[in-house]
């Protein structure tokens, strides 16, 4: 008997294609949407609960979930199909019939403290000029939304966040900086994000977080993972120093 599911999610159809001999990608659609993200999150959960022989890991993205495996183990595993691709695809297609209870499955909400403006937000003026909003309004709007982590990509620990208020949309800088410090909070077009490492970049930097987004010494090196929710909380310079342990 199947346990009663109060809020079931049914996995819609997906297309499977080969990324490499050791990975297939499941494509759930072509747009950025909360519905697709939820489908991907849930299917990822189902797969981790019911892995096949040789399964290694997954990479969730906006509209895809990529599944990595050991081809040699899959090849000799007792799975339906002849080629490695067939064996993995057939298995994954069968997992579609699994149902998952959404009420039990939610990402974490993580609060990221941010000191906005000043030396830490050198582009707040430029964003203000472009959006015709005061600095205070920008900070208020940026910190009053709950953002969704759609995926981690680009550099270790970098979150692709969805949900920024359109009023903050500002194009990238004409001249990218050679180094944007780790922890810099920025805006690029309709996106907002936080730099996890010192990297070159063209985002409009509006603030800085003392939070460490990436640390290889942590058990989970990336602070955020796909499916989490993020809230930015404005802090004072004193709080910033305190959080940094100064």
């Amino acid at each position, binding site marked *: 008997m199947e346990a009663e599911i109060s809020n079931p999610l049914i996995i819609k159809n997906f297309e499977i294609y080969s990324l490499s001999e050791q990975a297939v990608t499941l494509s759930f659609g072509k747009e950025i949407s909360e519905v697709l993200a939820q489908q991907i999150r849930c299917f990822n959960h189902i797969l981790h609960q019911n892995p096949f022989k040789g399964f290694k890991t997954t*990479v969730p993205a906006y509209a895809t979930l990529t599944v990595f495996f050991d081809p040699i183990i899959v090849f000799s595993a007792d799975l339906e199909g002849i080629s490695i691709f067939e064996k993995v695809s057939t298995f994954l297609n069968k997992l579609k019939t699994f149902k998952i209870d959404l009420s039990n499955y939610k990402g974490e909400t993580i609060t990221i403290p941010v000191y906005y403006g000043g030396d830490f937000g050198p582009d707040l003026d430029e964003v203000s000029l472009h959006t015709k909003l005061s600095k205070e309004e920008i900070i208020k709007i940026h910190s009053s939304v709950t953002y969704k982590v759609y995926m981690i990509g680009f550099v270790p620990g970098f979150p692709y966040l969805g949900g920024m208020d359109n009023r903050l949309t500002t194009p990238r800088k004409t001249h990218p900086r050679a180094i944007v410090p780790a922890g810099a909070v920025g805006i690029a077009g309709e996106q907002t994000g936080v730099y996890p490492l010192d990297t070159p970049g063209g985002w409009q930097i509006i603030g800085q977080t003392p939070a460490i987004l990436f640390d290889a010494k942590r058990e989970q090196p990336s602070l955020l993972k796909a499916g989490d929710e993020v809230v930015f909380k404005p802090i004072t310079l004193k709080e910033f120093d305190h959080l940094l342990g100064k």
Partner: protein
Amino acid sequence: MLSSIQDLGRMDYLDQAIPVSGAMDQLSARIANKAVGNSDSDAVIEFTYAAAEFKAETEILIAYAGDGATLSVNGEKLQAERPIFIPSETVIKLVNNPDGARTYLAVAGGWNVPEVLGSNSTYLTAGFGGYGGRTLKAGDHLKSFLNLSESSSIILRELKGDKIKYLSWNIPKALLLPQDRKTIRVFPAKEFTWFDSQSIIGFLSDSFSIGLNSNRMGYHLEGNKINRVEKDELLSTAVFPGTIQVTGSGNLVLLMADCQTTGGYPRIAQVASVDLPLCAQLKPGNSIRFSEISKEEAEFLYIEREKELARLTLAINSRF
């Protein structure tokens, strides 16, 4: 000159955007390890080109493979792809080999560096793994693990003495590779049909040269531009070493070991895994061509290569 500690890479943190990393030419790295009786995944040194010199402070059992350099002692070349006993205080020099770019040095027991996130591989961009998360430089001291495998111990016992000594056999990498090392086999990637037919024909028949701006993350390929017909934007999605992307200006980028885990450029093709070791040996200015195979064929080649490598391991283990 870039030398770093690598192994076969890390797969478990791709979802946190930590690249696979690992040896660019995994075939050479594995052969060097096998030759000293190590496990394939033991840490090796990846030398890019030559211009390095190191001293064995104690006696060691080493092996090297790859085409970027030959190792020599007092002007005398050391034989590649086989175990070599090196007495203490020997100075070994790398001499440039015009054939390729990368050379792998294995030591019996493996190089002793702390494991970071399940691997010994150095990831330079984020500065972790391998030897303090950085490239090797003059003055560094590297140690090997002291507990040797049974095969390593037997090989060492057989060669141990007061001078450089080899075993008579080697693991010939050339036998595992196609004759033509400048034709790279690829299978069509998801966005293969996003380009006009002229461009696709060109991609599969023209030659492309490796750009100067090429490194462990990827190679820029210079050649005819690829014209896109599909105007859809691709949402960022997973990529993997061997993925060939087409940039906004129609240029090709071949992703290599330290590539990002996701990308938003359309992908025209994927290099067959068995040919990635060929790509790893390419240098700026080298000219290559792509030839199309099916993904089933790529799978088949992968399995065949692994079978051959497994047979080699068996042969070594049964001998020692």
